[in-house]
């Protein structure tokens, strides 16, 4: 029973589907397998095990909006009479098998001409004949498990910025060339050849111009900005160093005394830019900025007096009547117009139980409709609804930069020390040899330029970020590490974070069932993929019962329940109304059953994630808090695993959570918030560090600073330790870089800093720093026992 699905790699719960000598967890997976093997795409399964995506049951209707000319035109990049090209965002792309499948999609449908995947952006550029409609194409992709996301268009359409690479290219080119030309100078060959010396000097000057004016421009701008706002950052001493280097070299070239420090200058910029590039290589394929609107449909059906039309979300106005189909997300705050509706708020709250609503009830945006097509009246336009207002409040407050606050603080001392030393050196040399004062002062400024210092943070944090990524914690950028190291309080969300959102503890109440009846019930539940049915199947399997596939007349009524017969026994499973029993329960945390003439109820309660019991105790250096949107039923459970003094709050609305974090911050606490649903997005945004828990890191998560794999949550302590270790490495790097600066200073102060010495010290110090930070973090990753 513990087999993994051949297609998607998930554990098969209950009895899987056996087909072609392989086991599958559901019909959907089997269908995809069948489709792929019929299209000679079997290699998909050889590339990576269980790489498939569970397909969602979707209908072609869902994509009808793509045939509305105005909307369609937005997505089509190019078209002529016979074919068209479209770029689709497919967030499910995650491995080499995905690339293989998508790039060979033309074998499944010959009307598709070609497909090229951009893995980093998770986009597919698809050329297709116009015989296939765009909506059919989208539906086909959905069938094989790659549901195109049309809503996130704006975020994917970022302008490609490749200027960093151009800058790096110029600097590298100049560095190599100038060093080559300077070689005779190092050996002292040029002294006798003033003509040759002039030639190489001016050549170096020409090559260095783009480096100075283009490659290094960011440092000048940043330093200027800092000074303008009367603050200091590390770019200020860097700029001083660069200017000193460059001016001294220019002077040396103009008096025909050789190319000066041009080689060091170019090398310097080159190393700095490498550090920047290294730091910016983050997890492009993960989306940290996902706004809740990304979950929403692009268009909905609007009811007109005599007809219907498909309109874009932006065009919805107050009092419009919207027709929402099964599985569609409600895009704005509405009032229910039909008699009944069941809403799945799992996007918003992480709760997978559906909520029943009656006519006239107010419905928040973000819920997914389960069941028949239903009419809603709009009461707030999409961008003014409840969730958006919360979102907008948070967004402006958090500044996200790659700047290291620690380094900026250091730079103040650095600059002060630098100026004092330069002044002192000038005074001393004034008495020794007044003609060399200028030269010495400039040499001090050159050698004290904090190049190695500037490299230490990007490399240390960059490596730490990669190490954390391998362990399942993906950070948005390197500044998160620094904030993570200052955390004093950790706030957990309960549902979906401490408890698993797809597993439940099951209890049965009601008439006693015989083994035969139990098997009937279990087999019925096994035919459905609903998480509650799955939990029931697991409940029976734990009692050593094996479900069979002999269910006849099986029917699944979405949003209501299942019915079927087993060996002549009629079985029904579902909500109380489905079974014709009166009930006033609003939130469905139970499932009613009827087997033959017996009746019973399954009650579901949330189950803690595996291994989570140990987590709170390991985090004893932090103050812990739990905030939950649910009622108090789990208080005892939480009290058991959390140490005394932990603050536990129930019935928290998204705004409450947001305010709770704010209140903590008012008392000078640094807060780490861990949550999952969109209801946490406000809190995640406002917290110093917000970590979103995700069962599947490449799926949807609310906007956050970091994403953690649900499975890695139990290892939060070692992850935080790793992050804290980066601070130690950084200190070591700083010590080394200061040591180099002092060595250089001793040369400068004694008047012996030649271009050759500078050309040796500069790369050696930079390379040492890169090595220390890289190997330090690597060794920690290998030998720490986690």
């Amino acid at each position, binding site marked *: 029973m513990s087999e993994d699905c051949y297609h998607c790699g998930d554990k098969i719960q209950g009895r899987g589907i056996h087909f072609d000598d392989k086991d599958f967890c559901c019909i959907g997976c089997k269908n995809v397998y069948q489709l792929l093997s019929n299209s*000679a795409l079997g*290699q998909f399964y050889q590339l990576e095990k269980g790489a498939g995506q569970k397909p969602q049951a979707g209908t072609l209707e869902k994509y009808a909006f793509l045939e509305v000319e105005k909307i369609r035109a937005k997505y089509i990049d190019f078209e002529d009479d016979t074919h068209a090209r479209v770029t689709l965002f497919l967030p499910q792309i995650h491995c080499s098998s995905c690339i293989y499948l998508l790039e*060979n999609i033309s074998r499944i449908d010959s009307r598709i001409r070609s497909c090229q995947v*951009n893995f980093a952006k998770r986009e597919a550029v698809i050329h297709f004949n116009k015989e296939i409609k765009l909506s059919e194409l989208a539906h086909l992709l959905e069938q094989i498990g790659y549901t195109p996301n049309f809503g996130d268009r704006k975020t994917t359409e970022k302008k*490609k910025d*490749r200027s960093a690479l151009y800058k790096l290219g110029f600097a590298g*080119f100049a560095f190599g060339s100038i060093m080559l030309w300077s070689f005779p100078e190092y050996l002292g060959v040029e002294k006798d*050849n003033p003509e040759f010396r002039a030639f190489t000097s001016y050549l170096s000057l020409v090559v260095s111009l783009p480096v100075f004016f283009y490659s290094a421009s960011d440092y000048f701008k940043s330093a200027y900005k800092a000074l303008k706002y009367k603050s200091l950052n590390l770019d200020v001493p860097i700029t001083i160093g660069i200017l000193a280097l460059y001016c001294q070299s220019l002077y040396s070239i103009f008096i025909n005394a050789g190319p000066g420090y041009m080689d060091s200058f170019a090398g310097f910029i080159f190393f700095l830019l490498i550090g920047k590039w290294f730091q910016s290589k983050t997890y492009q394929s993960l989306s940290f900025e996902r706004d809740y609107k990304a979950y929403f449909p692009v268009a909905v059906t609007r009811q007109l007096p005599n007809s219907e039309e498909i309109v874009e979300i932006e065009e919805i106005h107050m009092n419009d009547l919207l027709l929402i189909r099964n599985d569609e997300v409600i895009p704005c705050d509405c009032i229910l117009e039909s008699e009944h509706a069941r809403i799945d708020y799992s996007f918003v709250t992480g709760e997978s139980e559906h909520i029943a609503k009656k006519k006239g009830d107010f419905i928040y945006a973000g819920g997914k409709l389960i069941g028949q097509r239903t009419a809603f009246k709009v009461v707030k336009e999409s961008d003014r609804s409840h969730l958006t207002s919360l979102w907008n409040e948070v967004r402006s407050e958090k500044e996200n930069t790659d700047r290291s606050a620690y380094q900026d603080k250091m730079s103040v001392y650095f600059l002060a020390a630098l100026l004092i030393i330069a002044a002192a050196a000038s005074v001393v040399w004034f008495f020794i040899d007044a003609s060399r004062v200028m030269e010495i002062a400039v040499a001090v400024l050159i050698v004290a330029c904090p190049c190695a210092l500037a490299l230490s943070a990007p490399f240390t944090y960059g490596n730490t970020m990669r190490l954390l990524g391998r362990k399942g914690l993906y950070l948005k950028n390197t500044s998160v590490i620094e904030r993570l190291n200052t955390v004093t309080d950790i706030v957990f969300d309960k549902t979906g974070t401490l408890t698993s959102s797809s597993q439940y503890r099951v209890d049965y109440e009601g008439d006693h069932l015989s083994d035969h009846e139990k098997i009937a019930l279990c087999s019925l539940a096994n035919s459905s993929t609903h998480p509650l049915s799955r939990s029931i199947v697991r409940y029976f399997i734990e009692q050593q019962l094996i479900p069979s596939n002999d269910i006849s007349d099986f029917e699944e009524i979405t949003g209501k329940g299942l019915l079927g017969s087993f060996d002549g026994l009629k079985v029904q499973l579902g909500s109380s109304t489905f079974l014709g029993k009166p009930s006033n329960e609003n939130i469905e945390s139970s499932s009613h059953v009827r087997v033959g003439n017996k009746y019973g109820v399954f009650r579901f309660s949330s189950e803690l994630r595996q291994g989570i019991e140990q987590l709170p105790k390991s985090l004893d250096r932090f103050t812990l808090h739990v905030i939950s949107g649910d009622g108090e039923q789990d208080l005892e459970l939480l009290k058991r695993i959390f140490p005394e003094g932990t603050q536990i709050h129930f019935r928290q609305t998204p705004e409450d959570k947001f305010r709770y974090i704010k209140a903590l911050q008012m008392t000078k606490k640094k807060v780490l918030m861990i949550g999952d649903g969109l209801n946490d997005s406000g809190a995640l945004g406002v917290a110093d560090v917000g970590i979103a828990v995700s069962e599947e890191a490449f799926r949807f998560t609310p906007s956050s600073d970091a994403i953690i794999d649900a499975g890695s949550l139990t290892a939060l302590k070692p992850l935080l330790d790793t992050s804290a270790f980066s601070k130690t490495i950084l200190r070591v790097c700083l010590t080394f870089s200061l040591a180099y600066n002092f060595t250089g200073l001793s040369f400068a102060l004694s008047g012996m800093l030649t271009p050759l010495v500078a050309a040796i010290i500069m790369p050696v110090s930079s390379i040492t720093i890169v090595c220390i930070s890289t190997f330090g973090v690597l060794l920690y990753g290998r030998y720490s026992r986690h």
Partner: protein
Amino acid sequence: MGMIYIMLTVSLLIALFFLVSFFWATKSGQFDDDYAPSVRILFDDEIKNKSNTTTDGSTEI
């Protein structure tokens, strides 16, 4: 001594050639996605393999 001027110019030209190639590669988007191409090259052309097996009965791996 004249030789060294030529050599230096040549070295500059070679370096420029690589710089321009690098810019061209960047501009054409070669560094935008460094994962997909690395896997793409390893995909076998399965249809060809199939026709092989039907003609001579041998299986290729």
